[in-house]
């Protein structure tokens, strides 16, 4: 249109009626389709999911807190969007874009046949994607909370979740995360395809909220938004969830050791090395260790019989079998040849594989056995990944 010669334009102008349509074609009217709530939701969710994905896939375990907050933000956004789907502006409403499978199929057939069908809001296939994205993100939030509670004994459900149940939730969480990545890929492909098909930049539409008004568009009945009602519903939901979640997260985690470390144990074992929390080895390992104290990692660490008996009782009563933390569940699977060398367990080896020898040899760490150099909560046996902090001076 823009390179139409002037004389043709002049002719068109002379023809009156054509002229107005020509002007309209040069400057098509763009109507507000996506309101500011929908747009800010969309881009905030992009940011939250990007942060959650980056911390979940790329960053180390010590980023767990950022990951959880990103997930919480995504969940909050989803709830807000669902509420807006009932009380929002015309094209924000579920009733505007959720259609029957029959209609969706008809739309798909029309697409394949190359018939132009344009929806100003979400088209039926786009709507399916929106619902799928909302559902999968919500499921990620739910399984995330379950895994956080069971595996890491943190968050609102730590008080009730077993490690085993949490681990199952974690596996589902991972599968859902892959599914979400796939959906995001399809969503982007769909937006590009539809932009090409309808000759309109849909990404721009999600930025400024406007789409061209064209003859033959599917037009939706106008709906008045109820922002105050929506805000009230979201505020009540948010406040209630926050209070309940916060209160529950203060409860002691299921199977998290609470007994204070025996002072005699701490003194005797802590004289030469970290007094490893009793939940870090199973009973059989502690028994074997106590039976061999005369040659304990190359040193005589014999105890008088009374002390030995006291420590044997203490260790048996607080061994890995009595706890349900991640270290207790994983470290109880010991290396058969070295049943009480924690750093020889498959779990320990796997989890520390990426750490250079220089870090362990550094003055700030001094050996693989000095858990507390990096794990601030090692003494409690909890080893929450958010408490990992490798000392700066240890990093080569």
């Amino acid at each position, binding site marked *: 249109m823009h390179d139409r010669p002037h004389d043709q334009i002049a002719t068109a102008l002379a023809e009156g009626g054509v002229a107005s349509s020509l002007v309209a074609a040069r400057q098509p009217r763009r109507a507000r389709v996506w309101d500011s709530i929908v747009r800010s939701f969309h881009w905030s969710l992009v940011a939250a999911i990007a942060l959650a994905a980056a911390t979940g896939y790329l960053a180390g375990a010590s980023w767990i807190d950022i990951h959880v907050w990103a997930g919480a933000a995504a969940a909050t956004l989803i709830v807000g969007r669902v509420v807006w789907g009932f009380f929002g502006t015309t094209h924000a409403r579920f009733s505007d874009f959720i259609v029957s499978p029959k209609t969706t199929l008809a739309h798909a057939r029309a697409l394949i046949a190359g018939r132009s069908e344009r929806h100003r809001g979400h088209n039926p296939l786009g709507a399916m994607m929106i619902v799928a994205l909302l559902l999968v993100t919500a499921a990620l939030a739910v399984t995330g909370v379950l895994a956080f509670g069971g595996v890491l004994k943190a968050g609102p459900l730590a008080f009730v979740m077993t490690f085993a149940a949490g681990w199952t939730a974690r596996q589902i969480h991972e599968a859902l995360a892959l599914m979400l990545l796939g959906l995001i890929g399809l969503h982007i492909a769909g937006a590009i395809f539809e932009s090409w098909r309808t000759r309109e930049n849909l990404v721009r539409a999600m930025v400024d909220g406007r789409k061209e008004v064209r003859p033959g568009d599917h037009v939706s009945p106008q709906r008045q938004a109820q922002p105050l009602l929506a805000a009230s519903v979201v505020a009540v939901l948010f406040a209630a969830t926050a209070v309940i979640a916060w209160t529950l997260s203060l409860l002691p985690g299921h199977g998290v050791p609470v007994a204070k470390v025996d002072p005699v144990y701490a003194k005797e074992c*802590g*004289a*030469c*090395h*970290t007094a490893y929390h009793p939940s870090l080895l199973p009973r059989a390992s502690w028994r074997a260790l106590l039976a061999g104290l*005369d040659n304990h*990692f*190359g*040193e*005589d*660490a*014999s105890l*008088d019989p009374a002390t030995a008996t006291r420590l044997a009782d203490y260790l048996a009563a607080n061994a890995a079998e009595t706890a349900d933390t991640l270290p207790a569940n994983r470290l109880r699977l010991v290396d058969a040849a070295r049943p009480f060398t924690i750093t020889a367990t498959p779990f320990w080896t796997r989890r520390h594989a990426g750490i250079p020898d220089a870090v362990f040899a550094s003055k700030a*760490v*001094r*050996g693989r*056995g*000095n858990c507390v150099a990096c794990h601030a909560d090692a003494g409690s046996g909890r080893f929450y990944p958010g408490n990992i902090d490798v000392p700066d001076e240890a990093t080569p």
Partner: protein
Amino acid sequence: MKLKSISIAVAAALVTASAGALADPARQAILDGYAAKAGTKPSPERGKAFFLAAHGGGKPETASCTSCHGQDPRSAGRTRAGKAIEPMAVSVMPGRFTDPAKVEKWFGRNCNTVLGRACTDAEKADFIAFMASQ
């Protein structure tokens, strides 16, 4: 000079304190006990040689007392697991060698670890005499 008088007072206090530490009756009793059983006079010089010697006979990682305690008894040592060991020198740690059970426990463990045998009463007496002189 005010500064000078303070220095003298501090020095005097230190001398008194170390003299007091040296004269700790509990440690003296332990030392006398080992000396009596050994039938020899405790020798700080022999104790020093014993402390610094490479003994062998024990575990390969710990050939000498100094493997963990370090060359200087007035400085902290370090266990093989990386934990600091408070200095052995009585002048720095006045509480050293005053608890008979603790003394026996650590001679028992460490002589076996370093020498592969129990220490003699004479060796123990010399060792304490050396550390008391430090």
